[in-house]
Structures are given as C-alpha cells and as structure tokens.
C-alpha cells in the first residue's frame, strides 16, 4: 500500500516537474522578486516593506495558481488518456490513487515554495541584509503552504465530479470566499432564525484563509503566537483531510467512462 502510494505520489511530482508551464511561473516569481528593489526606489524608506509584500504575495498567489492549474488535470487527464484504466486494473485502490495524486501535488508545491522562498531571501539579502525579524517571515510562508494544502484538496475534490474548467472556477471562487471567511461569519452573526443557522453552517463549510494570511503582520515585524501556529496547522490538516475524504467518497462511487 505504502509503496503504491509513494509510486503515485512520485509520479505526480515528476509530471509537474517536467511540465514547462511550471517553470514559467517560477521564473515569473523570481523576476518579480528581482524587480522588487526597483519598486523600493520609487518610495524611499519602504524598500524592505515593498519587497516583503510583493515577494510573499506572489509566492502565495502563484502557489494557488499552480495548485489549481495542476490540480484540475490530475484526475481528468488520467481519465482522458485512459492511463487510469491501466492503474485501476492493478492492485491499486481508488483511495490510494486520489491520496497519491494529492500528496504528489502537495510535494510539488512544497518544493516550489522552498525554491521561491530561497529566491526571496536572496533578494532580501542583497537589498537590505538579513535581520533577526526576517525569521518571522517564515511563519507567513508556512501559513501560505497551509493554504496550498487546502486549495489543492478542494481542487481535487471538484475535479472528481466536474470538468477541469468548472473545477478551476469553483476552487478559485472558494479561495476568494475563504479570504473573506471572517466577514462571512459576521454576515451570519447579523442574520436571524433559520437563515442564521444556514449562514453559520455555510461559514464553517467554507475554508478559512483569512487567519492563514499573516503577510501584512509579518511585513510589519509582528510575531505570531505559537498557539495560533498549532491550531492553524491543525485546522489546515483537518480541512484538507475532509476535502480529500469527500473526493475519495465521490471517486469510489463513480463510473469511469
């Protein structure tokens, strides 16, 4: 079971790594980071702030784009090319397939983020030199990775029952809604009666990306408590696990044409 899971995970990772689109995105991010000092020239004294904001935001945004862009194809491409048949005719369980695909994409994103982070710190070193407070930025990047876990899981969930384009739209919509998760809860708090119950339930079903976005705080050297790191990690892991479980649930019952 473990060897089949790792085989699928590694193959998914390999597919992403050999995809040229991925390199374009990474190149784009590196260019963005490299050009950040130019932004800094425009507003004097804000060099580091702008570099941090631009760098962290692009790491997050491009990670999400990669997660969705690759995630929508993970299942549908295997169906379209009939490679799924050659997998399911082997002693591979369907849940192993889904979980392996998920872990493969997560691995891709982690490696990607590590590369982009390295580029980002190099840019930081060149422009400002490294300081103690720069370690705080790692927490922001870690939270970004937690966001990727959720986005990837949601994308795979959608791709088990809808077309790639719709999966992308759904996943991106949830990402946007999730950044306003706390406003959603506020709306729920204002409403009354049955509507309140429904809205509160909806608020909890929607992912919460708001508390996973600490870029602004990090840019202003504000620390993040260890309790928050712990529970955010727990939340992201459980939420992604729920989405993957739902994906398996749908995929187990699906007739593959």
């Amino acid at each position, binding site marked *: 079971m473990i060897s089949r899971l790792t085989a699928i995970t590694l193959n998914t990772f390999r597919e992403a790594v050999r995809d040229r689109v991925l390199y374009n995105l990474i190149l784009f991010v590196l260019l963005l980071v490299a050009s950040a000092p130019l932004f800094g020239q425009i507003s004097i004294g804000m060099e580091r702030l702008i570099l941090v904001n631009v760098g962290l935001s692009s790491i997050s945004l491009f990670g999400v784009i990669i997660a969705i862009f690759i995630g929508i194809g993970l299942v549908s491409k295997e169906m379209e090319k009939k490679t799924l048949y050659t997998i399911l005719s082997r002693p591979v369980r*369907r849940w192993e397939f889904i979980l392996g695909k998920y872990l493969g994409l997560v691995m891709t994103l982690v490696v990607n983020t590590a590369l982009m982070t390295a580029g980002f710190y190099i840019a930081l070193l060149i422009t400002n030199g490294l300081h103690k407070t720069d370690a705080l930025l790692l927490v922001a990047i870690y939270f970004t990775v937690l966001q990727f876990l959720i986005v990837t899981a949601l994308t795979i969930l959608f791709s088990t029952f809808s077309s790639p384009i719709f999966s992308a739209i759904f996943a991106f919509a949830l990402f946007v809604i999730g950044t306003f998760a706390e*406003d959603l809860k506020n*709306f729920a708090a204002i409403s009354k009666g049955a509507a309140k119950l429904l809205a509160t339930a909806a608020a909890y079903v929607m992912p919460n990306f708001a508390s996973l976005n600490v870029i*602004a705080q990090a840019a202003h050297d504000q620390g993040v408590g260890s309790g928050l790191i712990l529970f955010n990690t727990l939340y992201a892991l459980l*939420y992604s696990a729920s989405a993957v*479980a739902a994906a*398996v*649930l749908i995929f*187990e019952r699906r007739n593959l044409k």
Partner: protein
Amino acid sequence: MTSNRKATVICALLLVVFFAGTVLSRSQVEKLRGKEVTLEEVLYMPSGKTVKRMSLGYSSLLADIYWTRAVQYFGDKLNRRSMRYDLLYPLLDITTDLDPHLIVAYEFGSLFLSQQPPEGAGQPEKAVALVEKGIRENPSYWRLYFTLGFIHYLDRRDYKAAGNAFLKGSEVPGALPWMKVMAARMAEHGDDRSTAVYLWKAVYDTSIDPQVKDTAVLHLTSLRAEADIEQLEQHVKVYHERTGALPSRWLDMVRAGILPGLPQDPNGAEYKLLPNGTVDVQDPSKYRFLERSHKK
C-alpha cells in the same frame, strides 16, 4: 462487504470526524486571533486607492465588505462601552476610497466618529474630514452639508462653521428650505436649546433610518428633560426664597402652590429632588445625552 463499499463507509466516517475537527480547531484559531486582527490590516494599507486598484474592478463589492466591517466594529465597541475606536476612521476611509458614492458610509460613519465615547469615537475632527471628503465626491447631495453642519454645531460647538455648512447646503439644487432657516439660526442663536430641538426634529422628520430616528428621539427627550430640570431648579429657588428652607420632597412645593402636581420626565418617571436643591432624572441611562447628568 466489498472492498469498494468498505472504503466508502470508512471515508464517510473519516469525513465526519475530520470536519468536526475543523470546526473545533477553527474556533480555537478565532479565539486566539481575536476579532480585530483582520480589521487591523487597514492600519498597514498605504491607502484605499491602492486597494481599489488591486480589487480588479470589484471595488464596490469590497466597499460593502469594508462598510460591514466598520459597522460590526462600531457595534461591537458600543456594546462593550469601549472608550477607544482606533480602527473606525481607517475602516471608513478605506470604505469611501473604494466606493466614493457610498453615502451611508459618510452619513453614519461621521455620526459614529463624532459622538463622545462611549457613544462614539469622540473624533469630531475626523468626522468633519470624512464628510468633507463625501461632499467633494458627491457635491450635489445636499444632506451631507446638513451632516457637516450638524457635527460642527453639536460636537465642535463651532456655530460659524455650522452656519456656513447649512448655507452652502441650502444653495444646492433640491435642498429643503429649512436648510436656510438652520443657517440663519446658527448666526443668531447658535447656543440656544431651541435651535438644538429644531435641528433634531429636522433629523427625525427627514431621516428614513429607524436607528437615526431613535437617536433623534433620545436627543429630543434629553433636551426636554434638560429644559424641565432647569425650570424645576428655578422653582426650588423660589421655594427657598419664600420659606427659607429647601424642599425635602415635591409635595412640599405642590402644597406651597408653586407646582401644579408631581413633575414627571418625558418617560413618565418622577424627577429626583436632591437634598442640595438640584434636580435629576430617575434613570440617567434613558437620557444619555443629558449634559447635566453627565457632568456629575
């Protein structure tokens, strides 16, 4: 049970357990973060204009979200009788940057800002800045001049500026005629209670928002109580001159023929006669804008 069905059942169970876990961990996260972390991001924003550029054309939707955040923030602070409203102005500023034509944000926002804590942020200068921004963006909306004049009058006691605002507003096509009356009253008797009553009546009559109407009623009852108290204290003085002693209860004054009956406040409760001859309302919480009561 086939392996397929077994996997389905296990997955369904895991889904339930995991989801319950997300709810628990999320409430922990929210408890740890506190309510204002998301709101505090406004402190880091270079300006609402930047946010608007980044909102990809959905700025009015974003404005609605920020407006809701401002209302929530204000309501929350109000409930807790807070004395600090640090984030209110930045929230309103971003809201109105995103949607310069969101009139409610100027009208209510400036009221939230101008009133003294704990009823409001106690920042009349910022309220003036907000309304002036609103007037710049919506010059044909005369009611903003009224709001501006109102803040100058009520919270800044700057009758000249208030009169100017009313006058300018009255020149906007479509402005109701009493704006001119306001301007005139500001010039003649800025400090009059009757002016204040007139102003709040105008607010009550022209506003369609129940919350604003309620506030206007509160102000009007407070003003009436204020007038009553002044008059009653005058009568106490008369009693003192006649008898050489202070009355210990209202009945003393009724018997002396000074009062026709037991004096009642606008809410139907009896006024309080204090041993030193001054008068107060029974329940100050019903007269939040009663200045005398606050001074004590």
